[in-house]
């Protein structure tokens, strides 16, 4: 089995506080891998390390066999890894469509061009339209992203993440704060996103996790205490104790 991501002994400290304390993880190509864990466990920090937002204190991250730890985010993006943010992080004054199109320029090798209109970059426009339809925001195409309702902004967040045709996608709590119907729609969207991609997803909603994930890793206090199929995780006594216990009780 080939791995999309191989993470070895990854550590990150902020000053004296060690937040990620030696994470080892192998993410298989094409799988949906959920990362769960209590608040403050370090899930977002872990994503930040893998996606290049922070450089790790020590340890290695390999994407398709190549070292990416310590690279700048844009370098990692260019190698095919994209991530979404727990708190929506869009270009607030740009329209929904423009947000998506900007996220497509890199793969069309068009971003630094000033000698032709953006509308003439066929590949970026086609891809942006495609993603716009996929995330169901065609109606809001020309609205400024900053003025979108919450759930739409979350959908745009996912759209921007996948627009660049990355084959490894990290989603940080894509359904947080959504209503039930919105969550159902989001799950449908994430299922589409997962097609033909490797997906790592942080999620608090266990319903979502068990519905989507092929495998689950449990991150507690900066360490992964268990990795396995949903079935195995559900029955793992350590997990029950450390995390699910609170909910099961």
């Amino acid at each position, binding site marked *: 089995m080939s791995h999309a991501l191989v993470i070895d002994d990854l550590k990150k400290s902020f000053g004296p506080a060690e937040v990620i304390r030696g994470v080892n993880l192998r993410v298989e190509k094409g799988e949906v891998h959920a990362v769960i864990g209590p608040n403050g466990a370090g899930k977002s920090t872990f994503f930040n390390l893998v996606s290049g937002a922070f450089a790790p204190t020590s340890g290695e991250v390999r994407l398709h066999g190549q070292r990416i730890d310590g690279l700048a985010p844009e370098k990692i*993006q260019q190698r095919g890894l994209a991530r979404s943010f727990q708190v929506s992080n869009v270009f*607030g*004054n740009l329209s929904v469509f423009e947000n998506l199109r*900007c996220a497509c*320029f890199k*793969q069309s090798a068009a971003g*630094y061009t000033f000698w032709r209109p*953006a509308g003439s970059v066929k590949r970026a426009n086609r891809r942006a339209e495609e993603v716009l339809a996929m995330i169901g925001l065609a109606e*809001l195409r020309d609205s400024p992203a900053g003025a979108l309702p919450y759930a739409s902004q979350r959908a745009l967040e996912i759209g921007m993440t996948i627009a660049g045709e990355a084959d490894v996608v990290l989603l940080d709590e894509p359904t947080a704060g959504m209503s039930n119907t919105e969550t159902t729609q989001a799950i449908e969207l994430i299922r589409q996103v997962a097609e033909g991609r490797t997906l790592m997803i942080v999620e608090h909603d266990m319903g979502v996790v068990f519905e989507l994930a092929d495998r689950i890793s449990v991150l507690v206090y900066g360490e992964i205490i268990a990795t396995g199929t949903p079935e195995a995780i559900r029955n793992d006594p350590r997990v029950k104790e450390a995390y699910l216990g609170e909910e099961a009780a």
Partner: protein
Amino acid sequence: MSLRVSPWRALAPWLISLLVLLVIPMLVSGNGTFSIINLIAINIVFALSYNMLLGQGGMLSFGHAVFFGLGAYGAIHGMNLIGDAGYDGQGFWAHFPVYLLPLVGFATGALAALLVGWPFCRRAGTAFAMITLGLGELVAAGSQMFPTVFGGEAGVFSNRMVGPVWFGLELAQPADVYWFSAFWVLLAVFAMWAFTRTPLGRLSNAVRDNAERLQFIGYPPRNLRFLVFIAAGGFAGLGGGMAAVNYEIVTPESLGLLTSGLALLMAAVGGLGVFYGPIVGAILVTVMNSLLSDYTDASILYVGLVFLAVVMFAPSGLGGGIEQVRQAWRRGDLAAHLPGWLGGALAVVLIALGLVGTIELVYQLSHGRDKLAQVLGLQPDPSSPLVWLGVVALFAAGFGVARASKNYREARS
């Protein structure tokens, strides 16, 4: 809901602008008027180039005049080279028409930005503002050390009646320069507008809105800021080149903080968020500066007041206000909003008149009679309490209308 604009709708503003530029010389006459119009053209290019940085790229610069001034110096030296080459008619400059000197300005400005810009563009925000402020002061002060290049206090002067003349386009009178200005302002505005529509232009908006996210869609913010910085420097230099041809003299003041401040003032008064905002701002500020200084010693104070009023009452600038009205009109609820907005505008005018009255009266007390009061046909006597009562009444009416229209607006929303 996607609004596809028909090609005619898209072309209309350009055709109208062209028409206006063609009609202006039929309506106006006199060198003084043409001089003001030529200055407006220069300032439009300068203000728009400034807005490439601030409005579109999110970079607040206090040193933009450096590129305007260097462009002007580049062009005036070019003009001298053309003049010198005229004696033997040999070489590159002998064949370079003065008409094209703004291109030299563009190249100089862009090159200067290319040379100094990279370290500036690491961050936007306060760091960028401070560094550009430092650059402006440094270049303005440093220019005194190289009198051969910058001409010392007096500056460098030249003569535009040199070199080859294309299509009989002479540059003798301000009215001749008008066509030169009209040509370049239209070209530069179109180029800067087109820039906003390119991938680079769009990504410069993205770096303004959210530099962090930009990294995760594959672009280092610094690269984008740097490219925008170069482009803005180039267009500022183009404006400088227009100024060099227009005035036939360039002084170190054109590099300094006051000139940089003018760019910020024009762009902010006109509005940073709409493309044409800085055009409106450049026209208004230039006209105010040029006309008022003939009539009152307080002209700078008045321009400052306009700036304050815009920042306080219309933070998105005059362009932003126009845009708001336009959108309401499109939605079809202009009639509902208009009384509230007009009331607000009336309040601002009344308060402004009160302020003007106060300022003129104070000026009369301290400086003797100011000409503005005579122009308005008033002969106010600052020692009469009635006159002061009138001023107070203006303020009171202004605040009353402000309050009423605010209530009106709130009741509607």
